[in-house]
């Protein structure tokens, strides 16, 4: 069974590329348009990895990350934060709140694909 990945970002223009890319790589891809929806999907679908944008309506990526880490059932979920803020304080905050890795926009899709593969143990 292929690994399940949730793409949580409110910008449809990046979601369309990420969805296409990850499907090509052989993952099952879910999409969430805001923080609230992201948290619900994570709880319900228990994806293996979440691409979590920081700035989202309703709940920020930080909040979602914190909620996931507070839930015993979701400890296995890997979180890769995406941010448009280039500040190191955000990286520090994300890591502190339990993100497994961090990637700053803009990024190359190849780099992202490699990172995702590494986080999921090299297997799609």
């Amino acid at each position: 069974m292929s690994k399940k990945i949730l793409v949580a970002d409110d910008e449809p223009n990046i979601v369309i590329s990420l969805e296409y890319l990850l499907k090509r790589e052989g993952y099952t891809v879910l999409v969430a348009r805001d923080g609230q929806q992201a948290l619900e999907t994570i709880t319900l679908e228990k994806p293996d990895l979440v691409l979590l944008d920081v700035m989202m309506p309703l709940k920020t990526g930080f909040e979602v990350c914190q909620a996931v880490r507070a839930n015993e059932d979701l400890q296995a979920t890997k979180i890769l934060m995406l941010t448009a803020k280039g500040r190191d304080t955000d990286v520090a905050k994300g890591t502190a709140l339990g993100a497994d890795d961090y990637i700053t926009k803009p990024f190359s899709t190849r780099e992202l694909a490699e990172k995702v593969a590494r986080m999921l143990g090299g297997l799609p």
Partner: protein
Amino acid sequence: MRVDRRLLLVMAMAGLAMAGWLGVTAALLWFTLEPAQREIVGALIGPRMALLALSWAAALALVAAGLRTLWRTYVRVPARLLEETRVLLAATSAQQLGPRGSAEMRALSAAINALAAQRDHLREDMAHQVTQASHRVQQEKNRLSALMAELTQSVVVCNLDGRILLYNNRARLQLREFSQMPDLAAGAELIGIGRSIYAVFDRQMVAHALENIHRRLVRGAASPSTQFVTTTPTGQLLRVQVAPVRPGETDAGNVDAVSGFVLMLDNVMRNFEQESLRDRLLHGLTEGSRSSLASMQAALDMLGYADLEPEMRERFMGVLHEELTAMSARITDLVQHSTQGLKTRWPLEEMLGADLVTAAQRQIEKDCQRSVTVDSVDETLWLKVESFTLLQALTYLSSRLVDEFEVKFLRLRLQAVGPRAQLDLIWTGHAMSTETVMTWEMDAMRFGTQSLPLTVRDVVERHGGEMWFERERIRHEAFFRFLLPLATAQEQLEATQLLQSDSRPEYYDFDLFQVSAQGSELDDQLLSELSYTVFDTETTGLDPSQGDEIIQIGAVRIVNGKLLRQEIFEQLLDPERLIPAASIQIHGITQDMVSGKPGIGKVLPAFHAFAKDTVLVAHNAAFDMKFLQLKEASTGVAFHQPVLDTLLLSAVVHPNQESHQLESIAERFNITLQGRHTAMGDAMVTAEVWLRLIPLLDAMGIQTLRQARQAAQATYYARLKY
């Protein structure tokens, strides 16, 4: 001639001694004689006894004459010298003793004269030094007040009680924001010499700042100032810097002595707004762009796959297109704001556009020897410019036009277009190529042999503006157009009011440093040390109980014996009734002048605030007070402070004068009348009269407020009732 009793006494004793000596001699002779001889002598001398007495008297006269001469020389002359020396001692001007008497006496006089001369010289020297010193102090004071008046920073200096000793015009304008009645009292009830700063700022806040300063002083900080931020009632943010005023003669053991404090006020609202605008722009530029770039890069990466379905390719292309449009819009937005938000760091100042044009006209005419006419200028425009470099740019362009294109006539034009001003430098004839304009714009500006490290482009960019070249073919004209920023409404207001203060105002009184909290009751305070509000009213008639109303109030303050001509209250009122024609002849205030003015219900509270903590003074005060008292019920404002009447007190000082009308008193004191029968004019004259009455009352032993009130009551006029 008066004879000294002591001299008579001495003479009498000499006479007695001589008589005694004669008696003893006779007695000795008598005892040596035989009884027969005694008889013969007795017979011989007996009838000639009178002769003997005569001889005694003659001898006595001789002795007396001798004694008198001696007396004159050795007692009378020194006594006179003593008197004259005493006069000399008390003399305030140079004086000399006349030489008299014996050689010793003359020498003594000369020595005393020398001493006196030495004393006079020292005294003169001292007086000279005192004059010089006080002159220097006065000069320094004047210099400081001039400096304060011109300063663009708001400054208020207070003594430790929080009483205002000095403030400048900027501060007055800024603190207006705290006024409850900005239209009526215009903040004059808040900021003024001798008023308390705690009417504006919370006492705790200032106390806390002073405490911080104290701690820093104790620690030995070099610049022990501190600051706090407060909001005005209108929601503006004010940053207040507090610095201590330290007494001049600080000794080592007293490092933390403070005699007052300086407040520097800064409206940081505008800075704050600019900062947040800058933040927003920066945010849009970084985060927004990053997101867009991420979407574009991801889409581009996907487009790289050779096996991409046409439908997906279409969608990725759509993403690219959309994000590119968003990026462009963001950049456009940024450029529009950045001219205000990001580039306004160069210090620009408010300047009346017409002034700039006039200055440019003069400078171009001088430098280029060509006549410059002013085409059309919007007189109301306030620019925000760095006038020096802007004038340089205009002059530089003109000189190149004249040198390279032989332009004969130049014109200037200024008008507002949207949020900016257009300043045009126009000429007739030759037009030039865009390349030429570019070089002129980018070349370092040259004046004769002198080259500046500045281009026209630099100047334009400092203003966040733009400059270009345009031609009007029909009129055969061409012009350079400068787009310049306009001052904001608030900046315009402040600049206008700074311009209007023409004379140098009395905004300071350092003597208040010495005044401490007034412990004693008002009644026991000296007249010369009290603060007064001297006022006058104009009314529709003489009978307030029959419906006559106040139509104008004018008032001025006296603090510390000084008339503060800048701290005035002047207001026309709508009496809400007709003004009788007869009274218009006196005060000249017509119905038109008062229509639309505030009524007594609004003006009286403002006047009450203006007169707070002062003694009221008016000429024929009972009349004005009657009007005020009749309004107590309807306005809820009562004047409880003491009232002095210059009419009554003039009668106290000059009981024999026939008239105590304001004109007559002013004439007696040689006070120039100005604007008689306007409330303000009369209040000013009354104030001057009162300042002259104070020392005259003092000479009569009337020194305190209580004494003045009692004296006024005792005069004949006090029995008149209105």
